[in-house]
C-alpha cells in the first residue's frame, strides 16, 4: 500500500462514505508508550522511595555497590525523565500530531523503531549501566555517553516522526500545542548534546556554565513545552470550548522559548561564574515568572464556565492541578533565583521540594491527564473512573505532603547552616522531615499504580463513553462554525507560509542566543580570569586521583557534597576560601553539585588524616555517629584498614581537593576582614578574585596549645559547673563518642581503625588551655577535627565534662623519685617535650601530633606507664621499656604527673 493510499483509508478501519478523510492514528504505539510509561514510573518511584528510605536507614540495602544511594538516585531522576515522562509525551504525540497537523505521523515503522530505542537502548540499558557504575555525574544527564548517542538518535527520529507532518501546515493553522511540540523537539535535540557532551570537554567552571544550561533546559524546554502542549490540547478538547486567547498563548510560547534558556546560570548564583551571567539569569528568571502568570491565566480562563466539567472529568482535573502547580512552582523558581533568597535556601531540601513540585505537581499531573484523556479515545479502551479518582487524590495528597515537608526541611537546614552549629546538626534536624518525605512517597506510588489499574479495568464498550466524552460537543461546535473566523489574511501567508520555518528558526536562534549569552561569553571571561589567576605550576591529578574522581562521580558523591564554596560569609566561615574558576581548570567534568546533604569538600586537602577518611568511607557512622552517608564496604577488603585499590583511589582524590589552592599560598587577610565586618557578600560581588585561607584546617600546636585558640574556662561556681558538665555529656555523646567512646576511654567504634588512637580522656587530666586548643584547632596529625564551629558555651560545657572524666590528682610520692625522674626527663624526653615539659623541645616543631605539654595534661598512672611501655602508635613517641628500668620508668611517671599546672620559675633551671 502506498503512503497516500494509507492516508486516504487511514489505518484504523474502513472509511465511511460521506465522512471526511482523516489521517490515521497509531493506536498500537499509543498503547505501547502508555504501558511503558506506567511500568517505568512505578520503577522510578520505587527507586525514589528507596533512596529516600536511605536517609533514615543509611544501611538499608547498603552492602552492594549497585544498590547504593548515588546510583539509585541517578536512576530515579533519569527514569522519571526518560521512562515516565518521555513515554507519556510520546504517547500523547501519536494521539495529537495527526489531529493538529491533519497528517499522520511520518512512519509506523519509525515509530516502533523509536519505541525500541527509547525503552531498550535508553531507559533499560541506562538503568543497568548506572547500577553497574557506568554513568556520568551531570545533573539530568546521568546516563552514560553510550546512551546519550541513542537519545540524540531518538530526537532525530522524533523530528521526522512528529515535526515533518507539520511541514505542510500553514502558520495560521498551527495551534499552540503544535508550536510547543515542534519547539520542544527541536530545542532538546540541540541542547541535549551540549549539556551532556560539552562538560566533558570544557572543564570546571566553564563546563558548569554549559551544564547549568542543560539542567534548566531539561525541565524548561523538554518537560515544560510538552506538558503545556498536553494542557493546551486537553482543556479545549474536554470542555469543547476554544482556549481564551490564542494570541496570549503565542506570546507565552515565544517568551518561554526566549527566556527559559537564559535561566540556566541561576543554579550557580554566588559562584565563580561571572556575576554578569548570574545577574542575567536572575533577571531572566523574574521575566519567566511573569510569562508563566500569562500562560496560566490564559489556561485557567480557558476553563471559564467549565468548573463543573473540571470537577467531574478526572483527566481535566489532573490537568487543572498541573496548571496550578505550574504557576506555583514557576513563581517559586523566580523567587528562589533572587540573591537574598538564593543565598539562604540554595543547596537545601527546599530545592528538592521545588523540583518534585515541578516534576510531579506540574509535569506528571498533566501527563496523567493527557494519558487519561487519550485513553478514552483509543478504540477498545476506557478507564475506570472510580479508581482513577482515587489515583488523583492519592498522588495529590502525597505530593502536597512531600512538598510542604521538604520546604520546611529546607528552611530548617538553611537556618542551621547560617548558624555556627556543626554540620551534623543540620542532618539531625532534617531527620524527621526525611522520614515524612519517605512516607509521602507511598501514596504517590499507590496513586500511580491505581492509575495503571484504572486503565486496564475500565469498561470495554467504549462507544457509550465516546459519546459521553463528546457530549455537548454539537451545540458548542455549531456555535463554533458560526463564530470561527477565516484563517488566512491576504498577503501574510506569502512570507510566513510555512510554520516549520519560523518554529525551526526560533528554536535554533534562541538556542544559539542562550548558548552565546550563558556559555560562550562567560566561558571566555572565565578563561581570561583563569589565565590571570592560576598559579604558574598547578599540578594535575595523579592517575590514582583521577581514578578516584571517576569513582566519586559514579557513586553520586557530588549529589550530597558540593565542591563549590560560594562567595558568602556563611560558606566561607564554615568551609574556607570561596571556590575560584582557576581551581577547577582540570575538572572534566565539573563536580560542583547543586545540593548539600554532607558538607562541601572543596578544602579537604590536609583537613583530615588518611585513617579517618578510610574509616569514614567504610562506615561513616563509625566516626560521625548520626551521619546518613551510605557505607562503601565494596571499596574495602572487609575492614577499614584494608582498602582496595579503588578505596585508595577515592582516598587519594578526596585528599587532593583544595590542594592547588592551599599550595598556591594566597593570602586570606582581605577576605578574613570581610568576614569579620560582615560585608563579605557585597564585597565579593565586586571582587571575584577574593582570597581566603581555610579556617577549618587543624593548626599545629607547639607546646600543647595554639596561641590562636581562645582559652575557655568552665564556670567557677560549682552549681553552674555541674550544669555545664551535664550539658557537655550530651554534647560529648552526640559529637565525640564515636571515636572516644561514651565513657571517654578512647575506645569508640572508630578507634579500631584510627592511628593514633583517639585519646583516652579518662587517663589524663587536661587543662583549660589544652582542651580549648584541641577543640578550637583539632589535633594535626590525628583524626581529631576542629570543633570551633560549636557555640562557645558548648565548648565550655565539653571542657567541663571532659575534665570530670579524670578529676583525680595525687601528690608526688617521694622527693627522691622526683629527683631521679627530673634527671631522666632531661636526658631522654626534653628534646621533644622540652626541658620544662611544656612540649616545646627543639624537635617539637617538626612533629605532628605535637609532643604533650605536661603542664596542660596530666596522664593517669596507668596511661603514663602504658605510654612508656609501648609508645604511642602513629606519633613520634617511642616505647622506652628496653632502654629504662622499671624503677626509672616509675620515677618518670611520677615526675611527668607532677608537672601539671602552671610552670614554676625553677622548672626552667
Amino acid at each position, binding site marked *: 500500500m502506498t503512503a497516500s493510499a494509507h492516508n486516504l483509508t487511514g489505518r484504523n478501519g474502513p472509511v465511511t462514505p460521506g465522512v471526511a478523510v482523516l489521517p490515521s492514528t497509531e493506536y498500537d504505539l499509543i498503547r505501547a508508550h502508555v504501558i511503558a510509561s506506567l511500568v517505568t514510573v512505578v520503577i522510578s518511584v520505587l527507586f525514589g522511595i528507596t533512596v529516600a528510605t536511605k536517609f533514615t536507614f543509611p544501611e538499608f540495602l547498603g552492602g552492594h555497590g549497585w544498590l547504593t544511594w548515588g546510583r539509585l538516585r541517578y536512576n530515579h531522576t533519569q527514569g522519571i525523565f526518560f521512562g515516565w515522562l518521555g513515554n507519556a509525551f510520546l504517547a500523547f504525540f501519536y494521539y495529537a500530531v495527526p489531529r493538529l497537523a491533519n497528517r499522520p505521523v511520518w512512519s509506523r515503522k519509525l515509530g516502533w523503531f523509536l519505541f525500541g530505542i527509547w525503552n531498550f537502548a535508553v531507559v533499560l540499558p541506562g538503568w543497568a549501566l548506572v547500577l553497574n557504575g557506568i554513568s556520568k555525574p551531570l545533573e539530568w544527564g546521568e546516563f552514560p555517553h553510550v546512551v546519550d548517542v541513542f537519545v540524540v538518535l531518538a530526537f532525530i527520529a522524533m523530528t521526522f516522526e512528529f515535526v515533518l507532518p507539520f511541514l505542510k501546515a500553514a502558520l495560521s493553522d498551527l495551534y499552540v500545542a503544535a508550536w510547543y511540540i515542534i519547539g520542544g523537539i527541536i530545542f532538546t535535540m540541540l541542547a541535549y548534546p551540549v549539556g551532556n557532551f560539552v562538560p566533558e570537554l570544557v572543564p570546571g567552571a566553564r563546563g558548569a556554565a554549559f551544564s547549568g544550561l542543560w539542567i534548566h533546559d531539561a525541565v524548561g524546554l523538554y518537560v515544560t513545552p510538552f506538558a503545556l502542549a498536553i494542557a493546551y490540547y486537553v482543556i479545549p478538547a474536554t470542555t469543547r470550548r476554544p482556549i481564551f486567547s490564542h494570541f496570549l498563548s503565542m506570546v507565552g510560547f515565544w517568551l518561554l522559548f526566549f527566556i527559559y534558556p537564559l535561566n540556566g546560570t541561576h543554579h550557580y548564583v554566588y559562584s565563580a561564574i561571572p556575576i554578569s551571567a548570574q545577574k542575567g539569569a536572575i533577571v531572566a528568571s523574574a521575566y519567566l515568572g511573569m510569562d508563566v502568570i500569562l500562560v496560566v491565566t490564559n489556561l485557567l480562563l480557558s476553563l471559564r464556565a467549565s468548573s463543573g466539567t473540571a470537577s467531574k472529568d478526572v483527566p481535566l482535573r489532573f490537568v487543572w492541578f498541573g496548571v496550578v502547580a505550574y504557576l506555583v512552582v514557576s513563581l517559586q523558581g523566580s523567587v528562589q533565583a533572587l540573591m537574598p533568597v538564593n543565598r539562604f535556601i540554595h543547596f537545601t531540601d527546599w530545592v528538592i521540594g521545588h523540583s518534585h513540585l515541578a516534576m510531579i505537581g506540574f509535569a506528571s499531573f498533566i501527563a496523567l491527564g493527557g494519558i487519561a484523556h487519550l485513553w478514552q479515545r483509543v*478504540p477498545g479502551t476506557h478507564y475506570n473512573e472510580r479508581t482513577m479518582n482515587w489515583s488523583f487524590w492519592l498522588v495529590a495528597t502525597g505530593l502536597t505532603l512531600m512538598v510542604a515537608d521538604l520546604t520546611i526541611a529546607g528552611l530548617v537546614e538553611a537556618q542551621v547552616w547560617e548558624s555556627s552549629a556543626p554540620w551534623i546538626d543540620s542532618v539531625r534536624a532534617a531527620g524527621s522531615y526525611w522520614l515524612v518525605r519517605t512516607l509521602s512517597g507511598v501514596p504517590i506510588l499507590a496513586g500511580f499504580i491505581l492509575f495503571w489499574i484504572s486503565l486496564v479495568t475500565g469498561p470495554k464498550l467504549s*462507544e457509550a463513553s465516546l459519546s459521553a*466524552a463528546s457530549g455537548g460537543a454539537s451545540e458548542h461546535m455549531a456555535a463554533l462554525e458560526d463564530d470561527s473566523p477565516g484563517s488566512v489574511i491576504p498577503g501574510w501567508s506569502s512570507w510566513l507560509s510555512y510554520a516549520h520555518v519560523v518554529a525551526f528558526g526560533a528554536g535554533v536562534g534562541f538556542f544559539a542566543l542562550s548558548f552565546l549569552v550563558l556559555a560562550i561569553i562567560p566561558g571566555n571571561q572565565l578563561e581570561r580570569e583563569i589565565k590571570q589567576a592560576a598559579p604558574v605550576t598547578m599540578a594535575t591529578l595523579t592517575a590514582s586521583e583521577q581514578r578516584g574522581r571517576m569513582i566519586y562521580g559514579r557513586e553520586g558523591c557530588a549529589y550530597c557534597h558540593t565542591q563549590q564554596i560560594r562567595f558568602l560569609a556563611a560558606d566561607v566561615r564554615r568551609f574556607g576560601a570561596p571556590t575560584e574558576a582557576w581551581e577547577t581548570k582540570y575538572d572534566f567534568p565539573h563536580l560542583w553539585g547543586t545540593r548539600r546533604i554532607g558538607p562541601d569538600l572543596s578544602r579537604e586537602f590536609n583537613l583530615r588524616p588518611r585513617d579517618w577518611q578510610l574509616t569514614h568511607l567504610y562506615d561513616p557512622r563509625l566516626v560521625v555517629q548520626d551521619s546518613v552517608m551510605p557505607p562503601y564496604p565494596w571499596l574495602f577488603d572487609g575492614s577499614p584498614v584494608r582498602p582496595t585499590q579503588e578505596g585508595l583511589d577515592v582516598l587519594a582524590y578526596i585528599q587532593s581537593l583544595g590542594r592547588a589552592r592551599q599550595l598556591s599560598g594566597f593570602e586570606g587577610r582581605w577576605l578574613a576582614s570581610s568576614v569579620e565586618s560582615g560585608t563579605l557578600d557585597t564585597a565579593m560581588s565586586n571582587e571575584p578574585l577574593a582570597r581566603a585561607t581555610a579556617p577549618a584546617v587543624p593548626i599545629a600546636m607547639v607546646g600543647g596549645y595554639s596561641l590562636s585558640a581562645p582559652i575557655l574556662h568552665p564556670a567557677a561556681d560549682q552549681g553552674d559547673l555541674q550544669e555545664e558538665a551535664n550539658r557537655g555529656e550530651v554534647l560529648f555523646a552526640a559529637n565525640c563518642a564515636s571515636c572516644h567512646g561514651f565513657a571517654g576511654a578512647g575506645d569508640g567504634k572508630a578507634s579500631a581503625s584510627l592511628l593514633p588512637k583517639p585519646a583516652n580522656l579518662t587517663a589524663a587530666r587536661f587543662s583549660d588551655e589544652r582542651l580549648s586548643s584541641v577543640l578550637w584547632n583539632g589535633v594535626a596529625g590525628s583524626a581529631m577535627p576542629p570543633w570551633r564551629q560549636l557555640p562557645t558555651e558548648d565548648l565550655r560545657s565539653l571542657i567541663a565534662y571532659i575534665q570530670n572524666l579524670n578529676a583525680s590528682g595525687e601528690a608526688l610520692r617521694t622527693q627522691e623519685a622526683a629527683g631521679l625522674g627530673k634527671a631522666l626527663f632531661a636526658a631522654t624526653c626534653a628534646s621533644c617535650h622540652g626541658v620544662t615539659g611544656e612540649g616545646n623541645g627543639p624537635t617539637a616543631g617538626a612533629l605532628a601530633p605535637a609532643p604533650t605539654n605536661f603542664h596542660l595534661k596530666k596522664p593517669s598512672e596507668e596511661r603514663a606507664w602504658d605510654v612508656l611501655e609501648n609508645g604511642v602508635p602513629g606519633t613520634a613517641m617511642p616505647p622506652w621499656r628496653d632502654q629504662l628500668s622499671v624503677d626509672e620508668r616509675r620515677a618518670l611517671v611520677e615526675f611527668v604527673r607532677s608537672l601539671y599546672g602552671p610552670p614554676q620559675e625553677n622548672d626552667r633551671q
Partner: protein
Amino acid sequence: MINLIVILTSAIILALLLVWWRWPMFRVWIEAPKYSMLRQENRFDDQDKEREPATNSSSSGEPA
C-alpha cells in the same frame, strides 16, 4: 547582559502588542487556530464514533 535581556524581552512583547493594536485582522488571524483545532477534534470524534463498532475489539489493524 541584563540590558540585553530586558531590551529583547520588551521588544518582543511590544512588537506583538503593536501588531495586535494596529492591525485588527491580525487578531482574527492569530486566533484562528484555536477554532480549527476544535473543528479538527470534532471531526476525529465523529469518525471514531462511526468506526467504533467495527474496530472496538481490534487495535490499529490494517483495513481489510
